[in-house]
């Protein structure tokens, strides 16, 4: 659709909309969309709930965003909480905070700080995950995967009881995998680095494997 038929939408305060097709959407405050929303750039300061699917060229989030079905966005950036009840697809993600996806999350280049909960497969070309809270994914896959505990995450563990900053996953597959504080059944890949705090049932690697002395690895298989 061309630009003329995509009007801009600006919402301030507590508001509701039936959704639709828009250009730029700016939300300050609280807004509920009672249907699918298709827009250019979505900027939200506050909270937005979409009772349907959300398609956007880019999303800038400061606050919380909830999507009832699928979320497709070129870019996602910001701070806060993003909850998707369906699947998530995005080429570029820079998010600090909490990301919850019930189905699969398919990402291009993703840098995430915080906690992630993904019910299905989380895949990314390049994933940099800084753990700040208890995280879990059904499956993790992609090109270069890096999971670390952020420095603040280690500090937070001392003072809070909300669960350790660690990741739980079923299977992890990647060409280059670097893990810390991760519990997984199987890790498969080319170059694998298992860092401190990891508990891995079985590692299958094709090129190189390094295991930290503070990690537990059951089986190691070179294939």
């Amino acid at each position, binding site marked *: 659709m061309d630009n003329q038929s995509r009007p801009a939408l600006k919402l301030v305060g507590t508001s509701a909309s039936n959704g639709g097709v828009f250009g730029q959407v700016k939300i300050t405050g609280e807004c509920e969309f009672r249907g699918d929303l298709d827009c250019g750039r979505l900027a939200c300061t506050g909270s937005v709930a979409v009772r349907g699917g959300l398609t956007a060229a880019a999303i800038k989030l400061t606050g919380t965003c909830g999507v009832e079905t699928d979320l497709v966005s070129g870019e996602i950036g910001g701070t806060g909480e993003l909850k998707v009840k369906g699947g998530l*697809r995005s080429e570029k993600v820079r998010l600090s905070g909490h990301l919850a996806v019930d189905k699969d999350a*398919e*990402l*291009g280049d993703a840098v995430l700080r915080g906690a992630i909960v993904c019910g299905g497969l989380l*895949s*990314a*070309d390049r994933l940099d995950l800084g753990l700040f809270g208890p995280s879990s994914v059904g499956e993790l*896959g*992609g*090109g*270069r995967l890096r999971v670390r505990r952020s420095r603040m995450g280690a500090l937070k563990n001392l003072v809070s009881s909300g669960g350790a900053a660690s990741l739980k996953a*079923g*299977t992890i*597959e*990647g*060409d280059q995998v670097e893990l810390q504080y991760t519990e997984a*059944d*199987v890790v*498969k*890949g*080319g170059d694998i680095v298992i860092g401190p705090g990891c508990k891995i049932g*079985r590692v299958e690697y094709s090129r190189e494997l390094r295991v930290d002395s503070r990690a537990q690895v059951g089986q190691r298989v070179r*294939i």
Partner: protein
Amino acid sequence: MERELISKKDLLELMGISYGQLYRWKRKQLIPEEWFIRKSTFTGQETFFPKDMILARIDRIMNMKEDLSLDELAGKLSPYQTDLSLSKHELMERNIVSEVSINRHSTPAQLNGQETYAFELLLYLFATDQLLSGGEISLIESDLLMETLRNHFPSYEGKPCELLFMRKMGVSMFALAAAPSALHFDAGVKIVARLQLAELAEQLRSKLN
């Protein structure tokens, strides 16, 4: 019909591709979601693919990606390509659909070569012809099938769907359902044929190209 499967590990090794590429192609929707088949093995969950289809698809991606970006590729690989059409003469020459089906389900303009067959129509003919020549449906039933496809297939807008042909007490009926779907019938119903239209479209395309 049990089809041959290939595990993800074997696939990567065989084609010389990486996990990253496979997941990227999946994200760009170059490889359909339904081809990822999860099964339990003794080392835990593994993903399998229908072997012939995934090998052909990866081959095409690898050949085409030199000149096209991945996003352009996605359009080319969609099973219901729309810019293809054939005349009756070409259709007969390539032996895609039998003459009986062509003659029965074409307009006069198509028969004398003034009009061509669009891809969707070719797909309907192809599906009908497969069932007809397989002896599963009669000529009269094939009219009903063409009508069902014409009326309802466009409403799926390219989403995967399957075609069912059932009989109960000599009464036949066709149904289109979104795939993958779990359908259950009472004991008297016999499912005579079940076709994945996306798969048929894939086969048809390989015959056209």
